């Protein structure tokens, strides 16, 4: 495609291809599926946070009316887990339960009520064990191991990496700060409860429909746990009614309904209750952080030493990756010539934590961006200038060997500062009002797959019908972000047809080539590149067949809006359908495949794979708050976000992702928290788990910045996660600006602000936040040389 080709579809604010289905109620989510002879499944869950299982007797349940089958952990003993290094889950617990809510047994019955009633009849006998509900408790009682495979006691993972020489870096600093922060855990709260339907055919083939973000990984897990060839298992991901990372693990209920369908020969359905969704979790890790940073008087960073302590909950999930992520992206915004990262993830008796929007990076971003504000005050530098003067350069490598292709952070900062009148208004506002700035960066897809292999990360297959219909097949799954639409837009753009003439078939392991799933903000970049790779050879075939018929060279032709025509003489043309038929006559059935594998990059050290990505998005955010200096109550009045999206494939959808991320960041920053009391989840309901309503969410002004990145399709980067990152620290910095108190904890509740204000009144610290870190002995770091070209001149 010529460089100067004018894009007809890419960059336009089009509707999503599935929009009408969604606004009419036509879209079929997993819970909308109903099959003849379908049974309903319910899962019995542990009432104890930690206990040995003596026995689980399902015989009395089987005698209940309407009950068809019942299973326990003994029916599904093979362990699994999303990461190859953490195969620590059982579909139903065998010997032990590790959190209140851990699945223990399941029944299938003619209706949901009979299934529910039958659970009451199951006799499960437990010996309770000490419950460890915090990092400190889990470290203190190392003789009571939650998992025997832990590195030591209840330590799941320890990481220690040093890039360059931090002691040298601190020696070069004029000013050094040490700060401690805490970020409470929170959950995804998708409005759709997880749901799955399994069917086992007389032909011995198993089908699972599930609201999952990762059908490929569910497919692999089912094959492992059910001991069936993957070729006889089909996983169809139904449209996901909100994921945010919470539907990215292979989950117990998905395996359980498959087993029950196989045992009964009937379709089996489960839809988790809202309470069960809270137990399934995989949400934001609570993280305690210690950060020591050295700075010169000009505001340049000389060194950073970052420690993170993750409360992982009861299972591994993505936690090893999360641990690395809490240390991976500190270096991609401002140059850090010497960087040391130590991280520890601890098992506790709480629902397992995993990936939530931003995966392991919002916590350190909160620490880094609020600490920068403190530095700015210490050094008397404007917080905008502090950031603008020291940005990572495009085309550079960070200290931890991440390649930065393009960076639009300067423009992002300048634009939000201007739009919010940051300099004009900050310091000149009425009492109780304040402005805060923060920045962030995120990856456009993980550079490595979850299990080691050399195959593509995304594949797209295209077939063209003689009637001109273009069908695109891809394993990607639309979770609301618009991935089906992006696939259709790109193929329509490349083939010169209307978006309406592209049919997308996605997320079905029988029909679609593998795409690794909707996680790590990977789909637009990776599926987009695969779609371009699949479409271009087909375009060439169509053009060359048309060229022959029109007696023109193929280079003289183009395709737009369903017509093939001569660029210099539009009257010499064919319809797309005519051209397709000529091409089929000449080349045979019209089909093609394209795939995408990220470039090989990264340092040569253990852990170098986490944080790697083809490119990085950047965001700057300004928050405006009004805080009552008496009560500590505050409102966020407006958020300004500028996001470097590389190239907006559809600006309407990108703005939607930015606004949704800003909202979710607002919820985390102000109110959302997953908390426990006496071993139990304190608030497993939507009423008590506070999240922002339409009344709590302020106006969000979004500014898109385009950097046309060489790695992305048409220059695109991610948009679904990065914009969340700066919101929490921007709010914290705005509150400090408004009322002069530092809340070094998330969420920033009015109670904390109130306490800090009273401390301040008494002449105290005016800070709320943790003051100590647990006594974890980190191993000697893996020492990694920094790439010389990243060092500042």
């Amino acid at each position: 495609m010529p460089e100067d080709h004018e894009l007809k579809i890419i960059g336009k604010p089009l509707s999503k291809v599935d929009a009408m289905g969604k606004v009419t109620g036509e879209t079929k989510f997993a819970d909308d599926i109903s099959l003849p002879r379908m049974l309903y499944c319910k899962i019995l869950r542990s009432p104890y946070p930690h206990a040995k299982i003596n026995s689980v007797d399902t015989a009395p349940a089987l005698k209940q009316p309407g009950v068809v089958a019942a299973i326990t952990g003994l029916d599904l003993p093979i362990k699994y887990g999303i990461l190859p290094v953490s195969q620590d889950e059982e579909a139903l617990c065998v010997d032990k339960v590790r959190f209140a809510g851990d699945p223990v047994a399941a029944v299938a019955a003619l209706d949901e009520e009979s299934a529910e009633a039958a659970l009451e009849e199951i006799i499960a006998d437990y010996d309770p064990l000490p419950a460890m509900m915090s990092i400190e408790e889990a470290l203190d009682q190392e003789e009571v191991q939650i998992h025997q495979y832990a590195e030591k006691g209840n330590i799941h993972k320890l990481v220690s990496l040093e890039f360059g020489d931090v002691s040298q870096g601190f020696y070069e600093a004029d000013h050094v700060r040490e700060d401690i922060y805490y970020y409470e855990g929170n959950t995804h709260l998708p409005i759709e409860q997880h749901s799955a339907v399994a069917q086992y055919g007389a032909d011995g083939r198993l089908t699972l429909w599930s609201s999952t973000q990762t059908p490929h990984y569910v497919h692999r897990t089912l094959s492992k746990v059910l001991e069936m060839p993957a070729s006889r298992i089909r996983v169809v991901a139904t449209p996901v009614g909100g994921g945010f990372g919470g539907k990215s693990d292979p989950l117990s209920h998905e395996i359980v309904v498959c087993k029950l369908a196989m045992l009964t020969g009937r379709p089996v359905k489960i839809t988790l209750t809202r309470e069960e969704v809270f137990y399934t979790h995989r949400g934001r890790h609570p993280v305690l952080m210690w950060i020591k940073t050295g700075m010169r008087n000009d505001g340049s960073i000389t060194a950073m030493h970052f420690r993170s302590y993750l409360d992982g909950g009861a299972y591994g999930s993505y936690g090893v990756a999360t641990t690395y992520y809490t240390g991976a992206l500190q270096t991609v915004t401002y140059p850090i010539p010497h960087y040391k990262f130590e991280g520890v993830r601890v098992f506790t008796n709480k629902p397992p934590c995993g990936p939530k929007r931003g995966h392991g990076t919002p916590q350190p971003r909160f620490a880094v961006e609020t600490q920068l504000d403190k530095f700015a005050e210490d050094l008397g530098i404007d917080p905008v200038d502090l950031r603008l003067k020291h940005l990572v350069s495009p085309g550079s490598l960070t200290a931890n060997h991440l390649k930065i292709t393009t960076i639009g952070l300067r423009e992002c900062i300048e634009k939000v500062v201007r739009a919010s009148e940051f300099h004009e208004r900050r310091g000149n506002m009425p009492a109780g009002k304040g402005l805060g700035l923060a920045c962030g960066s995120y990856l456009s897809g993980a550079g490595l797959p979850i299990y080691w292999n050399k195959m593509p990360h995304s594949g797209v297959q295209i077939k063209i019908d003689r009637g001109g219909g273009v069908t695109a097949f891809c394993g990607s799954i639309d979770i609301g972000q618009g991935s089906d639409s992006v696939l259709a837009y790109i193929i329509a753009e490349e083939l010169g047809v209307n978006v309406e003439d592209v049919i997308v078939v996605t997320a079905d392991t029988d029909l679609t080539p593998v795409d690794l799933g909707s996680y790590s903000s990977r789909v637009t970049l990776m599926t987009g590149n695969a779609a371009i790779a699949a479409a271009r050879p087909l375009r060439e075939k169509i053009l060359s067949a048309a060229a022959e018929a029109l007696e023109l060279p193929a280079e003289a032709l183009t395709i737009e809006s369903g017509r093939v025509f001569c660029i210099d003489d539009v009257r010499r043309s064919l319809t797309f359908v005519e051209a397709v038929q000529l091409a089929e006559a000449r080349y045979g059935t019209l089909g093609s495949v394209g795939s995408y594998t990220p470039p090989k990059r990264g340092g040569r050290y253990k852990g170098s794979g986490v944080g790697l990505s083809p490119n990085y998005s950047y965001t700057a955010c300004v928050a405006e708050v009004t805080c009552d200096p008496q009560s500590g109550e505050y409102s966020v009045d407006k958020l300004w976000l500028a996001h470097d999206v590389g190239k907006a494939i559809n600006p309407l959808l990108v703005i939607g992702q930015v606004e949704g991320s800003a909202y979710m960041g607002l919820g985390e920053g102000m109110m959302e928290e997953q908390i426990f009391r006496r071993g139990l989840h304190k608030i497993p309901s939507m009423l008590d788990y506070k999240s922002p309503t339409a009344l709590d969410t302020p106006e969000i002004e979004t500014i898109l910045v385009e950097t046309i990145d060489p790695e992305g399709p048409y220059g695109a980067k991610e948009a679904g996660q990065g914009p969340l990152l700066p919101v929490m620290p921007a709010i914290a910095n705005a509150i400090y600006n408004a009322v002069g108190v530092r809340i070094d904890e998330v969420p920033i509740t009015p109670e904390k602000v109130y306490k800090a204000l009273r401390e301040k009144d008494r002449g105290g610290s005016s800070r709320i936040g943790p003051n100590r870190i647990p006594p974890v002995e980190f191993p000697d770091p893996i020492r990694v040389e920094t790439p010389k070209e990243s060092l500042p001149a």
Partner: protein
Amino acid sequence: MKQLIRLRVNGETHELWTPIHKTLLEVLREDLHLTGTKHGCELGECGACAVLMAGKPVLSCLILPVEHQDEEILTVEGMATSGQPHPLQTAFAELGAAQCGYCTPGVLVTAMALLSENPNPSRQDIRGALAGNLCRCTGYSKIIEAVELAAVRMND
């Protein structure tokens, strides 16, 4: 205990032999196969199950149909007229107000009730009317813009 229940939904009358403790949400989805109305919490917390009853938004997960046999019920499937989508539906599709789309049916009928009572709502009116409908995807911005756009078009 089952009972014969008469329900008026989207202008049609249905007679159903169904357990009297089944909620309106369950009857709509399971007996009438109107799956556009969604489960979110079954406790009246999220608004995903909102439908209109006599023109007012109600949470169908908290309603027993046996008590509302003669009321006119409207679900998302009943918003279109003669195959033409309601202006709210078009505006939501055009502006990207439905991301995952799971909360959308409940939001749409609630907005429809607002516009029939108040054809020129302010932003704050819209926020207030939709405060019982949780959406985790959009940050509400596009939803509010879409309601405004529909209001303008309906007043034309």
